[in-house]
């Protein structure tokens, strides 16, 4: 899922301050799971903003709504009436959701309330870790299901480096060495021979280095 973190109240206050009628729009999928922009976070942030502006002697009308997904037109439509009643939208979705809303409602300012952080997993309640960079050329089959692109600080294709210490990374001793994990996992799978093969330098053209990417599924395009 996409993991995000809500912006600070000070930053949100700055970006919403020109507006008098604000829709705080949540997203009920990824950012809900990471406690950044679901229904609960919409309610808490809206309440905090009302208190903040009232304390400052300013009046602001805040409407609250959460749609299932802000990155799909089908769900965005549900927000159309609420958006039309407000002068700005504070979106608590990831960057894709914010842009999808902005694209559909060209005349309404759409403001981000969340910093989109990474693609990751919920490791345990309240702990999210980065697992994928979206490089566009997945080689997890070679590496036993542990990604050196996202989890090795040096993105080594043929590791480990000399900085691996007792299973930890020299960049941050709290971070597990991805290459240690690759070797442990491949050993358990009986596939350690995978590492006898040289992995050529990664072709980053399939990643964001090639500019914004597009995926077309002709079989679904009408």
């Amino acid at each position, binding site marked *: 899922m996409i993991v995000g973190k809500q912006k600070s*109240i000070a930053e949100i206050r700055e970006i919403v301050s020109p507006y008098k009628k604000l829709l705080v729009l949540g997203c009920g999928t990824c950012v809900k799971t990471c406690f950044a922009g679901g229904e*609960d976070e919409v*309610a*808490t942030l809206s309440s*905090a903003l*009302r*208190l*903040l502006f*009232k*304390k400052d002697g300013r009046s602001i009308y805040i409407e609250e709504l959460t749609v299932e997904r802000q990155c799909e037109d089908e769900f965005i439509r549900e927000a159309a009436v609420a958006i039309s009643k407000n002068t700005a939208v504070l979106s608590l979705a990831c960057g894709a959701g914010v842009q999808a809303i902005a694209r559909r409602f060209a005349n309404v300012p759409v403001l981000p309330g969340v910093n989109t952080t990474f693609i990751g997993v919920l490791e345990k309640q309240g702990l999210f870790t980065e697992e994928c960079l979206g490089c566009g050329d997945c080689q997890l089959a070679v590496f036993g299901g542990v990604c050196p692109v996202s989890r090795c600080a040096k993105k080594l294709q043929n590791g480990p480096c000399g900085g691996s210490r007792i299973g930890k990374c020299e960049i941050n001793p709290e971070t597990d060495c991805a290459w240690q994990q690759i070797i442990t996992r491949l050993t358990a799978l009986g596939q350690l021979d995978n590492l006898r093969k040289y992995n050529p330098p990664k072709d980053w053209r399939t990643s964001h280095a090639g500019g914004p990417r597009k995926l077309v599924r002709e079989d679904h395009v009408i």
Partner: protein
Amino acid sequence: MIKKIQPQITLFYCINAFNDRASLSVLSGVAFELKTVKMACSSMVKDVFLLRAFEAGADAVAVFVCPEGQCRYVEGNIRAKKRVNFIKKLLDEIGLEGRRLSLHNAESGDTENIGKIFRQILSDINDMGPNPAK
């Protein structure tokens, strides 16, 4: 003559920790307005409920929980503590002062402790003044 406005306190309490409103009689004669919200477990105190109590005009909000290790639902009081700490920080960011929100271990019948808690809260309100977002 200007009528002095009484401080408003909202109390959220876990019924397993404290379910004896009679214990609050220790506060009779103290001038303040008290709203109470009882919960089956203190873990039911969501972030937004605490903030909405301030929106509704509370000058201070208190949460009564079971002592650590004694929650009937194992970790409800720990969750409540974490939420209270989160909202205290948020109140500081807003400029309302995190001190307006507090969490306490309180047991029914322990009138001495309850009296002490409320006197401290009222003293804090006196220092901070009324909720500026009223």
